[in-house]
C-alpha cells in the first residue's frame, strides 16, 4: 500500500510562514501578450504614465509572492532542514518522510513523536546513518535483474539490504523517472519491499538530465501539496506564485497575480487575469458562451418564437400560416397574431397593428429580451477577445515601427520603447474590458451598475481611440508621441478606475447577481 492514511485536518496554511512579507507590488508593471511564453517580461517603468508607485496595496490587488524554481527548492530545503534539526534523522530520510506526509512538516513531527516506527515503516524509510552504499560483487554473484555475473562488478546495496548491480539500478530509476514520471514511491525493485530509494542515491546513479527531471517532478508534487502555491499557467513558464487567498474570499475578490517572468494570471482559477469578473462568474460565462453563443446568435437571426409556448421556430419556406410543432398553435409569421383571424390572406398580413397581434408579440418579447441581453454582452466580450488577438499582430507592427523610428528618425532605443509600453497598456485594458462585459451580464441592475457601465463605456471609448492611434505611420507617430502618451495615461487611469470601483463593490458585497454561485 502506498497511500498514507493519516488524516490531515490541519488548516492548509498552518505550517507555512512567509520569510519575507514584502510582496512584489508589480501588478501594473508587467503584462504579457496573449499566452505567449516568449514575452521577456522586462521591467516596464511606467512611472511617467501612472505617476510614482504607491506603497500601499490597492483594493483590486492581492498580496502575493512570485517564486522562482530556486525559491521553491529553498522552501523545500528549509522544511527539510527544520525537520532535520528536530528529528535528528538524515536529511535524505527526512526528504522521503516529508514527501509521504505531503510536505506537512508539523504533521510529520507530531506523528513521528507519537510512533516513530510506524512512521518510518509506512513511509518506506529505515533509520540508519547510511541509506545506500556501493560494493564489489563477490565471486559467483549474479545480478537477479540482468543476470550479469562479471566478477568484481559494482553493486548497490540499499538500506533495506537488497542489492543489484549498479547499471540495473540506473536503468530502473531512469525508466521510472523518464517513462512513468515518478518522483514519489521510487521504491526498491524487490518484491514487497517498500524501501524508498533516497534522493542522494538517485543523484549518483542517473545522468544529470534525468536527475533534474526527478527534482522537477518532486517540486511538482511539492507544489501540488500546497494550496497556497500554484504554477504559472503560461506555456513553458516554470515559475510559481504563492498567495494566501482562501476559497471563500473568491466571492469578494479577484486575485490577480504576476509570476517572476511577468505573466499575470488569476490565482483562483489559473486562467488569464480576469479583473473585475469573479472566478465563479468567469466559469459560468465560459460555459455559457461555449455552449450557447453561436446557437443563440443563429436563433436570434433566423427564428421567431411561438407566441404561446415560446419554442423557437425557423421559417424555411411556405406561406405565413405557421403551425407550431410543439403546441400546435397556429399563427401568422408577419404579425405573430392568431391565424384564425386572418381568413384567407395567405401572402399578405394587414393585421400587424391589430390589438390581438400586438399582444401576441409582447408575450414573446420577454424571452427574446433575455436572449438579446445575453448577446449584447457576449458580442462585446467576443469583440474585445478578438481585438486582443489582433493586438498580437499590431504588436509585431509596433515593434517594426519602433525600429523604423530608430533608424529613420534617429530616435533612441529608450525613446522608441514608449510604443511597446503603450501597447501593453492597450492590451491590458482590452482584457479588462472583455471581462467587464462578462461581469456586467451577471449583475442585477442598480445605481451601482449604472456607474459601472459608465466607467466601462468611458474606458471602451478611450481604448478605441488609442487603438486607432497605433494605425498611424511611423513618422506621424513620432510627431504625435505626446498625444499617444496622453491617451495611454488616460486609458491606464480609466482601467484602474473601473477595476477599483468594481473591487470596492466586491469587498463591500454591494453587487447583486442575477445568478447563484
Amino acid at each position, binding site marked *: 500500500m502506498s497511500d498514507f492514511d493519516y488524516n490531515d485536518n490541519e488548516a492548509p496554511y498552518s505550517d507555512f510562514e512567509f520569510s519575507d512579507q514584502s510582496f512584489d507590488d508589480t501588478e501594473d508593471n508587467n503584462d504579457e501578450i496573449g499566452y505567449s511564453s516568449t514575452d521577456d517580461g522586462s521591467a516596464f517603468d511606467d512611472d511617467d504614465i501612472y505617476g510614482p508607485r504607491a506603497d500601499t496595496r490597492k483594493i483590486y490587488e492581492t498580496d502575493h509572492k512570485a517564486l522562482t524554481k530556486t525559491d521553491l527548492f529553498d522552501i523545500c530545503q528549509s522544511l527539510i532542514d527544520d525537520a532535520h534539526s528536530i528529528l535528528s534523522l538524515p536529511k535524505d530520510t527526512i526528504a522521503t518522510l516529508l514527501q509521504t506526509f505531503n510536505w506537512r512538516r508539523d504533521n510529520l513531527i507530531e506523528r513521528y513523536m507519537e510512533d516513530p516506527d510506524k512512521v518510518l515503516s509506512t513511509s518506506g524509510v529505515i533509520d540508519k546513518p547510511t541509506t545506500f552504499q556501493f560494493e564489489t560483487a563477490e565471486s559467483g554473484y549474479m545480478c537477479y*535483474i540482468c543476470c550479469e555475473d562479471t566478477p568484481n562488478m559494482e553493486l548497490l546495496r540499499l538500506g533495506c539490504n537488497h542489492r543489484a548491480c549498479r547499471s540495473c539500478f540506473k536503468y530502473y530509476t531512469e525508466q521510472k523517472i523518464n517513462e512513468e514520471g515518478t518522483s514519489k514511491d521510487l521504491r526498491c525493485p524487490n518484491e514487497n519491499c517498500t524501501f524508498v530509494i533516497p534522493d542522494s542515491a538517485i543523484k549518483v546513479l542517473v545522468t544529470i538530465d534525468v536527475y533534474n527531471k526527478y527534482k522537477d517532478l518532486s517540486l511538482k508534487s511539492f507544489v501540488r501539496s500546497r494550496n497556497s502555491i500554484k504554477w504559472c499557467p503560461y506555456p513553458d513558464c516554470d515559475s510559481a506564485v504563492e498567495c494566501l487567498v482562501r476559497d471563500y474570499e473568491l466571492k469578494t475578490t479577484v486575485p490577480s497575480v504576476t509570476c517572476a517572468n511577468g505573466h499575470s494570471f488569476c490565482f483562483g482559477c489559473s486562467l488569464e487575469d480576469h479583473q473585475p469578473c469573479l472566478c465563479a462568474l468567469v466559469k459560468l460565462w465560459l460555459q455559457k458562451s461555449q455552449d450557447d453563443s453561436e446557437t443563440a446568435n443563429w436563433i436570434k437571426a433566423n427564428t421567431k418564437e411561438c407566441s404561446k409556448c415560446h419554442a423557437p421556430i425557423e421559417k424555411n419556406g411556405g406561406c405565413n400560416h405557421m403551425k407550431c410543432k410543439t403546441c400546435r398553435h397556429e399563427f401568422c409569421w408577419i404579425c405573430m397574431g392568431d391565424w384564425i383571424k386572418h381568413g384567407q390572406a395567405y401572402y399578405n398580413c394587414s393585421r400587424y397593428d391589430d390589438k390581438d397581434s400586438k399582444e401576441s408579440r409582447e408575450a414573446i418579447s420577454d424571452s427574446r429580451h433575455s436572449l438579446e441581453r445575453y448577446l449584447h454582452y457576449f458580442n462585446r466580450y467576443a469583440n474585445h477577445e478578438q481585438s486582443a488577438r489582433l493586438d498580437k499582430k499590431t504588436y509585431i507592427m509596433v515593434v517594426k515601427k519602433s525600429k523604423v523610428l530608430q533608424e529613420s528618425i534617429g530616435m533612441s532605443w529608450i525613446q522608441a520603447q514608449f510604443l511597446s509600453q503603450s501597447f501593453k497598456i492597450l492590451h491590458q485594458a482590452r482584457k479588462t474590458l472583455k471581462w467587464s462585459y462578462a461581469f456586467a451580464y451577471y449583475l442585477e441592475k442598480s445605481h451601482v451598475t449604472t456607474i459601472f457601465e459608465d466607467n466601462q463605456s468611458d474606458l471602451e471609448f478611450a481604448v478605441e481611440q488609442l487603438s486607432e492611434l497605433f494605425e498611424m505611420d511611423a513618422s506621424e507617430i513620432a510627431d504625435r508621441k505626446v498625444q499617444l502618451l496622453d491617451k495611454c495615461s488616460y486609458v491606464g487611469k480609466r482601467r484602474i478606475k473601473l477595476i477599483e470601483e468594481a473591487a470596492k463593490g466586491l469587498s463591500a458585497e454591494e453587487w447583486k447577481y442575477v445568478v447563484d454561485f
Partner: protein
Amino acid sequence: MDICKRRLMKELSTAEKGLPSGLTLVSANDLTSWYIDITVDSNSLYQGQIYRLMFMYSPNYPMKVPNVQFVPDENRPIPIHPHIYANGHICLDILGDGWTPVQNTVSVCLSIQSMLAGNHTNERPPDNDSYVRSAPKYAQDSRFIYHDDSV
C-alpha cells in the same frame, strides 16, 4: 551488453532446462515474444484445459512490464475468470503498476496459474462487453484499476 537481451537469454536457457509443472514453452523464436501453454492442476474450473499465453517484451524489459495476454486457438479458449476479458486481456496488478524487474516470465506464469486455481466463479468481468468493444490491441495499454485482490 543489452540488459533486455541478456536477461531473456538467461530466462530462455533456464526455461529450456525445464519449467515448473503446468507450463510448456511453445515457442521463443525471437527474443521479443514468447508463447507458453499453461494448465491448472488442482481441482478447479480449468482442469484438463490448456490455455496459451503470449509474452511480448519491449527493449526496456525487465525495467518495463512485458505485455502478457491469453491468445485463443482452436483447442485453446480464453479462460473464463472475473479478471480475464474475452479478448484475452488480464487484469492483474503485477502486469501493470505492480511490476518490478525482480519478476520474470516464469513468476508471471505462476501468478496467473494461481489466479486461475484460486477462482471458483465461472464469470467474465462485469464490464467485459464494454471493455472488449473499446479495448486497445495490447492489454498493456489499458489502465486497469485493481479493485479486488481476493480472486
